[in-house]
């Protein structure tokens, strides 16, 4: 019978035995022609770009689904003449949730300098690690949805882009109180209204810092259910689709990420407001694996944190317990990370540190009220080189 340590030893000894010991002779003349582009490097970066794009697109989907919901579900006016959603109490609540969800997801997926700290004490079985890594990409979203609870602003503005008739600015805050802004431009492609029903289809672009995505969104009525679908395309066979439904007075978002015509991720999120508390239920199913996480915002000793109760079944191992998520700030670099205290019901407590993907220039976020801060979506000067951002991620 072979043991794991023997597998490791076998791999190690075999590979190490074959590593060439002699240092290759360098033809330094090659350096002289070093200006040539090395396509290989660029090609290896391409997947990162796709991954990033998907992350950002995923967040975009949320933003747009929420905006569509806000604009279309509770407002029977054509989008072009929509009033400020915050004049309507129901509308305000809905948009608050949607804006926070989408804003935080977006900020979560922007590449940032990575914390130099690694897991503080990473002594847990892999199944437990997966318990955390599954929700890692969503922590940013959850953070702001549950975090500040209030500071969400949606502003309908006159479009300053000749290609689009509507412009919406979304502004929200993360757990540390930093403001995050988003700009949406769109046109109404179709709009129909009957006695109790309205449907529409919009098309537009979503801007967040230097990134821009195309989208199509529509609201439909199917079997007395109002469904809002939002689809963002990235490449020919890559897209993210979000379907928003209200069922039994509960709003749920189903998200499907498709890459190369293959579904690579599916999850559901439910947002519940109860007794002045905002809770988020996150659920994913991946084959036989599943996880249910209930998130809640709390303040403990003056520190904003997320409290999580979870139940998972990963690789046949069932686990339940609680987590506490705090934000840690590196005093030297100011880079923030999530410090996660995990307390499984049947195992020892441990800590885990996770990168927090928030741009370090959040403090310089544009003020939605200040037109001078707004980026011109058509101005290439405003665009950063995505490669540069990827390089930052590499650090």
């Amino acid at each position, binding site marked *: 019978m*072979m043991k794991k340590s023997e597998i490791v030893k076998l*791999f190690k000894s075999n590979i*190490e035995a074959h590593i*060439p010991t002699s240092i*290759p002779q360098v*033809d330094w003349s090659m350096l002289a022609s070093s200006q040539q582009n090395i396509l*290989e490097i660029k090609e*290896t970066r391409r997947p990162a770009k796709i991954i990033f794009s998907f992350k950002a697109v995923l967040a975009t989907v949320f933003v747009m689904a929420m905006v569509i919901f806000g604009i279309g579900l509770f407002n029977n006016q054509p989008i072009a003449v929509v009033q400020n959603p915050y004049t309507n109490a129901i509308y305000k609540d809905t948009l608050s949730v949607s804006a926070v969800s989408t804003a935080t997801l977006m900020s979560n997926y922007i590449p940032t300098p990575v914390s130099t700290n*690694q897991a503080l004490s990473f002594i847990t079985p892999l199944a437990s690690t997966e318990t955390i890594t599954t929700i890692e990409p969503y922590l940013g979203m959850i953070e702001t949805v549950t975090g500040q609870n209030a500071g969400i602003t949606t502003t309908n503005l006159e479009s300053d882009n000749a290609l689009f008739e509507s412009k919406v600015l979304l502004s929200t805050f993360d757990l540390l109180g930093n403001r995050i802004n988003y700009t949406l431009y769109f046109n109404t492609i179709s709009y129909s209204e009957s006695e109790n029903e309205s449907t529409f289809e919009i098309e537009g672009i979503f801007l967040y810092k230097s990134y821009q995505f195309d989208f199509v969104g529509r609201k439909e009525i199917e079997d007395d259910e109002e469904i809002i679908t939002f689809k963002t395309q990235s490449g020919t066979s890559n897209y993210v689709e979000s379907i928003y439904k209200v069922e039994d007075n509960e709003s749920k978002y189903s998200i499907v990420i498709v890459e190369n015509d293959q579904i690579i991720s599916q999850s559901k999120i439910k947002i519940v407001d109860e007794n002045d508390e905002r809770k988020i239920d996150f659920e994913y199913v991946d084959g036989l694996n599943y996880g249910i996480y209930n998130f809640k915002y709390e303040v403990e000793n003056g520190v904003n944190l997320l409290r999580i109760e979870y139940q998972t079944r990963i690789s046949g191992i069932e686990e339940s317990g609680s987590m506490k998520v705090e934000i840690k700030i590196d005093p030297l670099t100011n880079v923030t990370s999530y410090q996660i205290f995990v307390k499984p019901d049947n195992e020892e407590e441990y800590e885990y540190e996770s990168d927090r993907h928030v741009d370090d220039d959040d403090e310089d976020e544009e003020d939605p009220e200040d037109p001078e801060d707004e980026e011109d979506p058509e101005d290439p000067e405003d665009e950063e080189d995505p490669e540069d951002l990827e390089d930052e991620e590499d650090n």
Partner: protein
Amino acid sequence: MIINQMYIEKIKNKDEEAFEYIYTHTKRAVYSVVFAVAKNHSVAEDIMQEVYMKMIQSIHQYKENTNFFNWLLQIARHHAIDQYRKDKRKLNLDINDYSEVLISSQIGPDEEDQFMRMIDILDEDERLVVILKVVEELKHREIAKILEKPLGTVIWIYQNAMKKLKQEGGYDDEEE
């Protein structure tokens, strides 16, 4: 692994010692990546040399303050894949045809056979993750950055790969 920018600057100035330093400190990881793709030691050795030449050739493309180690491993991976595509037949040598390798290897034929059997049941991603994990002893997070995959995916790949290896090798659960 962090390579001091000083060595990179020295390489730009054709400094042999700087190259030796970088080679010494990165050869194991580079070889691991190349072998994971090529699945053949003698081919991996050739490709490895080419990778360092590529590195020299493209050193001016390297962006300061980014992770040189990751950059080098990405060159290694891509170049190995490129070579694999160019000449599959060359790289797909019979896994049992490594008598030449054994001459200079400290590994016994049984161990080599067992190792190659295990390598053969893993797909390319699994080989990369497992070899970088157990040979180079990188963290999952570091591997995720090199392979440009989500951390969860890398952990998942590692888990699945180890399961396969345990089954192939008759793993004893008590060890874990």
